[in-house]
């Protein structure tokens, strides 16, 4: 069963998918290939039976098992598929609609999402609510038969080309912060939606700020229950951790063992590598291998029907720490060249090392992952906190104290 699937997939990808290359799109924060190319590829991928592998057929999926999904992810690691625009939508809003949406929502949105006809983003973080995302301020007020949304979101990947977004907003500020939230589906083309690029430390703008000013949405745009937004958010955050934690790093990553070994060999020329470099690279090999294997192990356990619980947080944390470690190895190997990168390879390494600092913040900081591991896996007590039972409108949130003036 699985072998036929693998063979067919490899045949198809060899014909249609570009191979992984150094500095390729799969591990970059943003896929720079034209949207039209990505949409055409996603539709072809769906036609060939490789999109929505585990999703039910009535929503456009293939109705297969995690076994086929596992094979797909392993095989896809050798290619640099032009699907960056769909990763967020399929991995988070899509999975969440599948789990929490109404039948009408699933039938309306999932098939078009799978074919790449409609692109999705998620709107969670706010300037004043990052790790403490339940402290968000985006307001949703009932008006007529629907809702009116006001507020600002940040760190929204793909908002500039998204057709829909899933937005977490506050519908009741008079109850404790986790209890007054509701999840909505918002049309990103609706009047009052403004998307602005956000420039990050690499100098690129892979994320956006999104402003919602009096954006009107219908009553059936509620995802889950009114006031039950946090439960839906937990589902979405779980999918985020899992999708970030179990992504196989592609072979073209500039901070991978293969790439840094090639860089080291290039610098050494005909001389042997210094022992220190060999050991640093070998250590990178062990950590990179372990992160990849942990992702595989978790997928296998899921496939075997076991509850992996919050262990996606472990994979997410380990992947982020691997990036930091690889950045340190790169500094040792490339030496002075990293102070002024003269080759494309060195420039890619510098960029990847800076990107790695973002990976330990995006999708839940390393510190939040450690809380999740400590509390949900090891069963350690939560910090009692002073904010859990207090009505939201009596809390202080965001950055308080002395504001920096420019």
């Amino acid at each position: 069963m699985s072998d036929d699937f693998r063979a067919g997939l490899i045949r198809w990808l060899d014909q249609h998918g570009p191979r992984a290359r150094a500095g390729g799109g799969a591990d970059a924060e943003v896929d720079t290939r034209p949207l039209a190319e990505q949409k055409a590829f996603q539709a072809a991928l769906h036609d060939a039976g490789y999109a929505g592998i585990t999703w039910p057929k009535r929503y456009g999926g293939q109705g297969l098992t995690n076994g086929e999904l596992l094979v797909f992810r392993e095989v896809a690691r050798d290619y640099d598929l032009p699907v960056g625009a769909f990763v967020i939508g399929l991995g988070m809003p899509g999975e969440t609609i599948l789990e929490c949406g109404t039948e009408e929502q699933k039938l309306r949105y999932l098939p078009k999402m799978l074919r790449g006809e409609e692109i999705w983003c998620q709107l969670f973080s706010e300037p004043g609510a990052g790790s403490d995302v339940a402290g968000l301020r985006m307001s949703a007020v009932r008006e007529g038969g629907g809702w009116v949304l006001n507020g600002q979101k940040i760190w929204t990947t793909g908002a500039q080309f998204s057709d829909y977004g899933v937005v977490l907003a506050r519908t009741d500020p008079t109850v404790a912060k986790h209890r007054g939230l509701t999840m909505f589906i918002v049309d990103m083309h609706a009047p009052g939606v403004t998307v602005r690029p956000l420039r990050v430390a690499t100098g690129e703008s892979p994320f956006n700020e999104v402003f919602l000013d009096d954006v009107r949405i219908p009553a059936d745009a509620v995802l889950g229950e009114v006031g039950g937004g946090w439960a839906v958010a937990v589902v979405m955050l779980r999918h985020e951790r899992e999708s970030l934690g179990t992504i196989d790093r592609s072979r073209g990553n500039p901070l991978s063992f293969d790439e840094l070994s090639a860089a080291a060999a290039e610098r050494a020329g005909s001389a042997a590598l210094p022992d220190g470099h060999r050991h640093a690279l070998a250590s990178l090999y062990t950590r990179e291998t372990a992160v990849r294997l942990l992702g595989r192990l978790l997928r296998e356990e899921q496939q075997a029907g076991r509850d992996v619980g919050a262990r996606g947080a472990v994979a997410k944390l380990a992947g982020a720490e691997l990036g930091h470690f690889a950045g340190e190895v790169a500094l040792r190997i490339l030496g002075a060249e990293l102070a002024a990168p003269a080759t494309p390879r060195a420039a890619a390494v510098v960029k990847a090392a800076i990107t790695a600092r973002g990976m330990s913040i995006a999708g839940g900081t390393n510190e939040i992952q450690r809380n999740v591991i400590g509390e949900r896996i090891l069963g350690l007590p939560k910090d009692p906190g002073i904010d859990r039972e207090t009505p939201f409108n009596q809390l202080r949130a965001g950055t308080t104290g002395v504001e920096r003036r420019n």
Partner: protein
Amino acid sequence: MRDPHVSLLPTPEQEMLRDTVREVVAERSPLAAVRQVIAGPGDYDDQVWLLLSRELGLAGLAVPEPLGGSGGGAGELVAVFTELGAGLVPSPLLACTLAATALQVVPGESATVRALAAGELIASVALTEQPEAGADWIPPAPATTVSRRDGRARLSGRKTIVLNGTAAGVLLVLAHEDGRNVLCLIDGADPGVRAVALPPTDLSRSLAQVDFADVPARVLDADVPAVLGRIRDVANLVLAAEGCGALAACVAMVSDHAKARTAFGRPIGAFQAVKHRAADMYTSWELAHAALREAVRLADDETRFGLAAATARALVSPAYLRAAGDTIQLHGGIGYTWEHDAHLYYRHAMSSHALCGDPDFQLSLIATSAGI
């Protein structure tokens, strides 16, 4: 049916074996009993060893059925050693397993292997000559020498860091003869063999220095580099399993303590300074464990097993050492007392870090295997 060459997950039979060993360890060799062994004259508890080796058949676990064993493989070894490591159970099983691993591929040694598999014989491997157990744990040019008189081989020299060297009835010795390295078998009871127990860092592990003075030796008809490579790789697998089990035991100890111990009006596990360190310990276990599962999966793949086993070992050794140190730290003062078990694990972690190839040795091996 799960294919062990494809899946990283243990088989149901291997999980049952692990559970059985876990129950036996809890009942017959809890840490209080381990402390009695440590305080007593013997290297291990004879009754526990009888139970493990004969009743549970662990001595013949990885010995093929035609040679009297149960024909298990890496998955069974890992199941067993994970639990023995978690309980710091003193036993000669590691020494016997390495000896059996080597001897089962040598023609003409089936009688010795049968005796090992039946739990009737304790054997060990004597490779190391310098006190450093790192890069030279398998010396490329051993000073221990085989010479021939009247056509009979005799062995002279000194080996050290020999696992259960004082208890071994048979020793597999790496030596030098006429410009080549040889492996030979020595009767541990021969009057020319003098084994002296070394003061062990890890109180649960028995190590010896063994002197050989013109001792009759049987030189094995063996592909020496291949046998040594097999010993090295199986040692990596088994020690990685032991370390993984012990690391998990440290995580459990720390979690339990962090929930029970109260300071500043709340359980200390609620403080992120404690919680995050515990989370890091757990994460290091998950990574090492995943690599260990890969080594099991590739155990029958001669071209890939060595790299996979060294990778698991290179991850486990430092992770366990750090976790065992953190276990003392997170327990505070009580963790630094002799009565607390934390130092037993820290000692075991230090010893396991150094034995049979330290991480530098493993990293060199990995670098070469991975093509750099």
